[in-house]
């Protein structure tokens, strides 16, 4: 304790203990387990590694995960922006109720969401029945996956935009109005750029979440290899076959992409703080 104290600039007690426990816990629960991914892929050697992650089935699963997550994030960006706008700016009965429900996808177990959407869009489901009449099949298709991911990613966008929207100073809009701008121009030229970092952050969060999503997707997806098999499922099936190295390899690629997105998010947030200081 004395050692820490003489070097510390702050004199509150407990640094050694709290820091020590924190690092221990993080090592045991996070760092060591995560490093197993690396430890299981490194012995593979470069060639087998590339082979494992570029196998056609694996590539197809990456393509699927990324594209569905991307489109879902895009849809969420629009729907989320609209919802945040309505919730922050308008007043109507039931608004608080709807605002609370935005968090439902956060709180609902993914498996429940999964069976819900699968049943909803199945050929005999409430929506699926009508859609089948129009020859649209949602189930066992990439579209189904996108729909599930839209549900999952929705709160990320709304909750990231809401605080920013709430803090927009009214004077800015009034000034624009005085200068003759129409509502649309004010929105497009002034508000949208201001909201853009938050929009980007929220969508990126939704995207990152969508890539790794499992429970809500596997029911509706049908999981047909090469067609509707998402990357996480790819990992699962390799695990089932005890192909630890292969599972780790696929996981590593996903992890690297997710981490770089985390870093990109941090960079966006720093940029946002610099721009609007």
């Amino acid at each position: 304790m004395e050692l820490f104290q003489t070097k510390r600039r702050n004199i509150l007690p407990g640094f050694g203990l709290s820091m020590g426990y924190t690092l221990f816990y993080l090592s045991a629960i996070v760092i060591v387990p995560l490093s197993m991914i690396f430890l299981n892929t490194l012995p593979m050697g470069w060639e087998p590694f590339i082979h494992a992650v570029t196998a056609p089935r694996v590539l197809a699963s990456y393509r699927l995960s990324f594209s569905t997550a991307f489109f879902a994030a895009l849809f969420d960006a629009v729907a989320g922006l609209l919802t945040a706008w309505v919730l922050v700016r308008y007043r109507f009965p039931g608004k608080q109720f709807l605002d609370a429900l935005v968090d439902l996808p956060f709180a609902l177990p993914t498996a429940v969401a999964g069976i819900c959407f699968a049943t909803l869009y199945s050929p005999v489901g409430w929506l699926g029945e009508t859609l089948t009449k129009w020859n649209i099949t949602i189930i066992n298709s990439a579209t189904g996956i996108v729909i599930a991911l839209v549900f999952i990613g929705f709160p990320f966008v709304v909750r990231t935009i809401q605080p920013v929207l709430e803090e927009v100073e009214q004077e800015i809009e009034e000034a624009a109005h005085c200068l003759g701008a129409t509502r649309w121009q004010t929105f497009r030229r002034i508000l949208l750029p201001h909201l853009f970092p938050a929009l980007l952050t929220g969508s990126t969060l939704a995207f990152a979440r969508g890539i790794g999503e499992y429970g809500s997707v596997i029911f509706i997806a049908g999981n047909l290899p090469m067609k509707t098999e998402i990357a996480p499922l790819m990992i699962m099936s390799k695990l089932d076959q005890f192909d630890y190295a292969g599972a780790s390899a696929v996981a590593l690629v996903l992890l690297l992409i997710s981490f770089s997105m985390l870093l990109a998010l941090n960079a966006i947030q720093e940029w946002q703080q610099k721009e609007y200081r």
Partner: protein
Amino acid sequence: MLKEPTSETAPIVKKRVSDPLPVQVVLIGVMLLFFIGFIFLPLGLVFAQAFQKGWLFYLESITESYALEAIKLTLTTVAIVVPLNAFFGVTAAWAITKFNFAGKAALKTLLDLPFAVSPVIAGLIFVLLVGSRTPFGSWLGEHGIKIIFSTPGIVIATLFVTFPFVVRELIPLMEAQGRDEEEAALTLGARGWQIVGKITLPNISLGLLYGMILCGARSIGEFGAVSVVSGHIRGQTNTVPLHVEILYSEYNFAASFAVASILVFLALLTVTLKVAMEKQFQKNSFHH
């Protein structure tokens, strides 16, 4: 996220420059459509399906022995995970917010890690660490300790997935509250535990509770990670979400949705609690 308003902000009723009525109607309408399609229909479906074979069947489904075992396992997991992560949350938040040291930003990023990791990968890493085919895992197996395909595995995987919730709630809160009160307590002669117990914990109690609720909700609902580590053995290593999956895969839809409805109730409860706590928090803070 609970926010601690600054001492200068009082509740200002803002009158917004508003959009013309037709625009409002259209936007609200579109939003409602979205909500209906993505939230209300699914919610309604759960209950419709759960009760499609009548009340009796519903009750049987959720009190049937495997279902009860699943509920027990889920509750056990939550009872272990939430206190552990809460303790970690307070400790880590204390270390990060009450002291200056290098590498704080890196540490904070570390705390966000589970959000960037797919649940399946979260399960995978523990299989790789203590699965029966790994050196560490087989050593444990020789000593009669089974982690993967057993409750400890489920607990650990859930710990990984849910540990950020409490600490991420506490850090902004404690940063906003500053160190003054703790320093004041120090000058008045209080020792470490007295400071934490009498000053810090009461100050963060609401945030802590909030984080614990979020942590608990996520622990109950975790599916992907648990799916990997659990082994899907009915009556032994199935949590409620896994049980839902099994019933569904057997085409026992009514039972599956019946059990799922419990989770939906809990989710709605969580959402309501969240709102109530946020309101309470606002009320508390505006006096400062």
